[in-house]
């Protein structure tokens, strides 16, 4: 019984971190069709922002989260306005552009903040382990899980319960017709990109006390995030959640039964198989494209 609870919790924890990182990407890719290879670097920027705020101003992690969302969101907005918007409808060029942006961000951070691993302080009350169903689990991981659910809920509300969300969904379905209805599609795109970037920054901030902060930490995350988005089905929020859950639990189980290296390989392999037979992902949105 302990084993199962442990296993379940491990899978949930991995899944929540995956979802946190993939949510922003799903929104950006789903809305704009922009393959944002710099997404991992947004995660990294979030982590570095926390480090900077903590080391310079002594702000604790939880307060930092608000700033991180705003700062990384602003950076994303700026990038979209200046560079990415010129390449809509040109997916190959966007890939190159975002890849380049990612590389530049990585090196800029390395030059500015140095290449060594950085220290981010975990909030005191979360460093211990708590007992869940009689088994000790990391309090911080539970915190991440809860926050992920909260962010998911917030994103859902944003997309389905607000005016902005309605406009976003309209633009997602058919940008030209949406424009005919008087929706400012480019403003929607900018805000969406900023939101996605902000979410990525939050992911980086939350993950940084548990893992480590280095300039190249983003690369691992962007690969996992893309897998989640591709498996879940583009443009489907529910798909992203389900696929994060499946991939997280799968890698947890395989890693437990064998080891992490094999788990990574097998998860990749299963994703390839799934995409081969169901290229649109688990939940596919049926739509007519002009």
């Amino acid at each position: 019984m302990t084993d199962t609870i442990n296993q379940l919790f491990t899978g949930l924890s991995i899944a929540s971190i995956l979802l946190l990182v993939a949510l922003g990407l799903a929104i950006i890719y789903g809305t704009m069709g922009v393959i944002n290879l710099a997404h991992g670097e947004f995660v990294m920027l979030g982590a570095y922002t926390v480090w900077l705020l903590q080391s310079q101003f002594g702000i604790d992690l939880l307060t930092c989260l608000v700033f991180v969302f705003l700062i990384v969101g602003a950076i994303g907005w700026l990038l979209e306005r200046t560079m990415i918007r010129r390449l809509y409808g040109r997916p190959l060029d966007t890939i190159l552009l975002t890849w380049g942006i990612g590389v530049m961000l990585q090196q800029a951070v390395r030059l500015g903040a140095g290449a060594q691993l950085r220290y981010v302080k975990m909030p005191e009350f979360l460093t211990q382990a708590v007992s869940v169903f009689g088994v000790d689990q990391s309090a911080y991981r539970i915190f991440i899980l809860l926050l992920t659910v909260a962010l998911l809920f917030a994103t859902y509300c944003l997309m389905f319960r607000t005016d902005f969300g309605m406009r976003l969904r309209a633009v997602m379905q058919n940008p030209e017709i949406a424009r005919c209805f008087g929706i400012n599609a480019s403003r929607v795109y900018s805000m969406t990109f900023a939101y996605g970037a902000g979410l990525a920054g939050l992911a980086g901030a939350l993950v940084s006390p548990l893992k480590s902060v280095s300039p190249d930490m983003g690369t691992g995350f962007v690969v996992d995030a893309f897998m989640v988005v591709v498996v879940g089905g583009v443009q489907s929020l529910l798909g992203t959640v389900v696929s994060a859950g499946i991939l997280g639990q799968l890698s947890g189980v395989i890693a437990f039964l064998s080891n992490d290296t094999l788990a990574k390989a097998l998860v990749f392999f299963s994703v390839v198989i799934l995409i081969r037979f169901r290229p649109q992902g688990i939940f596919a949105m049926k739509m007519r494209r002009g």
Partner: protein
Amino acid sequence: MGLKRRTFLKGAAALGAGTAVGFPGIWIKNASLAQAAGGEIKVGVLYSLTGTTAIIETSLNQATLMAIEEINAEGGINGKKLVPIVEDPASDPATFAQKARKLVVGDKCVSVFGSYTSASRKAVLPVFEKYNNLYWYPTLYEGRECSKNVIYTGAVPNQQQKEFVPWLVKNFGKKFYLIGSNYIYPKEENNVCKILLKELGGEVVGEEYVPLGHSEFSSVIQKFKDTNPNVIFSTVVGDSVVALHRQYKAAGLDPAKMPMASLTTSEEEIAAMGGEFAVGHFTSAPYFQSYDSPENHKFVDAFRKRWGKDKTTNFVSEPAYFQVHLFKQAVAKLGSKSLTPPDIRMASWDQEFKAPEGMVKIDPKNSHTYLWPKIGEAQKDGQFKIIQQVKEWVEPLPYWAYPGQVCTPNGLENKKA
């Protein structure tokens, strides 16, 4: 219409001519190195100053340059000054090879000090073997190498583990869980560990390798809880060290009952993970910054004075420092004879130097170094408390785990049965 072709060509030609005129250096080969021969000894310094391993390799560069400055301040070697030629191979093994060739063939250095990763050492080896030059390698590594053109001043597995593993078994128990990053260094170290454990009647309850840079250890920690080892023998490196330690404590595991014993966690990683996550875990290394010896105090003070008062020294920068002094002694011994790398190699054998860690000596049998492994317990302030130190220096045996092979001055030989 845009740029016309003619305009473009004119511009390019002008730019090229301007550059050539403005920088006469490119006409003179090795202009920056033009100097009188005789009266100077050229040595190469080959550590990455940019790229992924720059952080640690910069400290090696700094330790080397500091040693060279010390030697020159005392008048050089037999009146000749040491001239360091510094190259930055940017953490890329292919660039390492290219820069090595430049130092050996172009600059005609009599020795080169360099490398941190085994990949970079393997990449430059062909250069040193082809031109019969000498490479001084200061980093702890997996052993199993016996080149006639390298002097190894870093620890090999038998030196790091010979005292460590029995101490761990005695103080904590016989069940070990081996976890490492997925490349050759952890695998060879684990090899040695398994042999030692077998002799002590210990048991390996798990052996696992995670990808380099891996930071998600929840499954691994679950396995720790499941198999309940007495010691977690960790050879993960880099980011993984920080992540593993943090997640270990966050999951509620107790270092008093299940400590992590590492060969790679240094003061650097503790600073990155936060002292409270490192407390109670152990590292085995020949050197810790907190070691109390007059030579070490002098070394740390001089390093801070030279490079910044918040700098730390570690078990890779200390060998980078003392190997230059060993080089100096070898060259001094040769006197006015011609300085060729093979002569320097032979003159370095049996050289002894009072390094910050203790008296060290180069072993003539395999060109590795006698060292003083210590066991350190990590403290909250980021330093190590030295629990135990060997009573006498430990002989280096790079093929300890492979009884059929032995390293001799002429290279690797198979032992007759």
